[in-house]
């Protein structure tokens, strides 16, 4: 479905990603993990054609972003659904209009059908009756659920969830991952970036770990947990607290 070959990207002279090779298939749910600022969100934006890589290429359904015209790119992006890290809800639209927007833009459904689908999807994310509200009137968790409804309403074959639980409490985070799991269709590809490995576990089948600008690990959570690699153990094995303590102790000169 998506193939990335030798993807690299720099910003302001700083190399963020380098030589990233990845392949994603239909029906997969893949977790993209790594430390903050490693380029997870950037990689997601490169995969969906919002950002052009400095080197390498990304093909989606066998078509390279680089070879497409502006109109063809816009058309191909219709085959993606995306939940943005900062919600990215349109503040000049109501919740109902936000959720309906991908369907309205696609233009292949009647207004009545769109409304029915919006009500159905908002009910699924436990937000029925808020259609008329604006995003500024919602809590962080509600905004994430609206964004989730908007990302999935088009039933696109590829859905990207960019840090879907950032800034949310543990209960709401669990709810969001449960919803992602419920909304997952067997023929779609889902890519999830998050730091919340524990809650990702029941949802993701395999993981890609980005570290120091490249792909550091690819495999299942089980493989990562069994690894003796200290970096993998920090992320997957629950050693984060110990490593943190050791780092602090080192910095303070405590043996």
């Amino acid at each position, binding site marked *: 479905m998506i193939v990335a070959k030798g993807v690299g990207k720099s910003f302001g002279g700083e190399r963020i990603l380098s030589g990233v090779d990845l392949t994603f298939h239909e029906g997969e749910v893949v977790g993209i993990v790594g430390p903050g600022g490693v380029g997870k969100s950037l990689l997601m934006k490169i995969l*969906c054609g919002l950002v052009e890589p400095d080197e390498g290429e990304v093909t989606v359904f066998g078509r390279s972003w680089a070879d497409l015209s502006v109109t063809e790119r816009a058309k191909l*992006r*219709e085959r993606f659904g995306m939940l*943005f890290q900062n*919600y990215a809800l*349109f503040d000049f639209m109501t919740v109902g209009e936000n959720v309906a927007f991908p369907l309205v*833009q*696609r233009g292949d459904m009647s207004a009545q059908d769109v409304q029915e689908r919006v009500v159905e999807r908002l009910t699924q994310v436990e937000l029925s009756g808020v259609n008329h509200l604006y995003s500024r009137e919602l809590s962080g968790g509600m905004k994430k659920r609206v964004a989730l409804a908007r990302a999935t309403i088009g039933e696109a074959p590829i859905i990207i969830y960019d840090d879907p639980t950032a800034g949310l409490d543990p209960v709401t985070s669990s709810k969001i991952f449960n919803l992602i799991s419920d909304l997952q269709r067997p023929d779609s590809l889902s890519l999830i970036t998050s730091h919340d490995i524990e809650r990702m576990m029941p949802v993701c089948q395999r993981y890609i770990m980005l570290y120091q600008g490249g792909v550091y690990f690819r495999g299942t959570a089980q493989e990562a947990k069994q690894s003796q690699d200290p970096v993998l153990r920090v992320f997957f094995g629950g050693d984060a607290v110990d490593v943190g303590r050791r780092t602090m102790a080192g910095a303070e000169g405590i043996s």
Partner: protein
Amino acid sequence: MGLLLSRQHQRSALLRAFALLSQTFLWLGRGSLRRRRQQFIEQLFEMGNRSVLFITVTLGTLGMISVFQVLIQVDRILPEYSVVGPAFLLTMVREFAPTIAGLMIATRVGSGIAAEIGSMVVTEQVDALRMCNAEPVDYLVAPRFAACLIQTVLLTMYGGVVSVVAGGLVANLVWGIPYEVFFRVDNITYSDFLAGFLKCVAYGIAIPIAAAQAGLETEGGSEGVGTATTRAVVNASFCVVVLDFILSGFAFFFLFD
């Protein structure tokens, strides 16, 4: 080298502005306003409503001060007040009404456009539009461009009237010049109106493009929105001054007798 880079940057910024302008015309030609009628009307109302008091105060004050200062000088040099009104009207129509109103609109409306679009960029709303196959130029720039163009012409005409009336009041109430002497319009020709109108249209095109470009090129967080807003006001004001110079020259050689 620094100067060279700076010039190259300015040139590429100018090219990007022309690219944005041509894309905006393209989307307008493809019926952007028909699809975004609601947004267009909202912008029209918002820009006019947001600027009308500002334009009234600034151009009214400018009219009063200009007439007052000119009459002081005329009183010293040749106490012949009858020339002041017609000269003031001519200057307002050709030059000051469009240019001062243009600068005010660049400040008021230009900053608003840049801040709105800039905050949508940093909150990823522009990316979300792209992901839904909605082109930001079609969705955000075209309605604002059309609304700003129309409102620049209307606000300039309104501002010009306010300024002239305010100047006439000062001339009559402070210096005792009769209204029929001050408001003599017999030496204003269609060419003068055309020169003023061309400036309104040129500013109405340049201001939203400079502001939208600054908004779309916003980087970073809220600090970036602040920088983009400042850049929008500076660039739009700069465009007004440069276009004034070019169009005044054009009018001098091709329109005026």
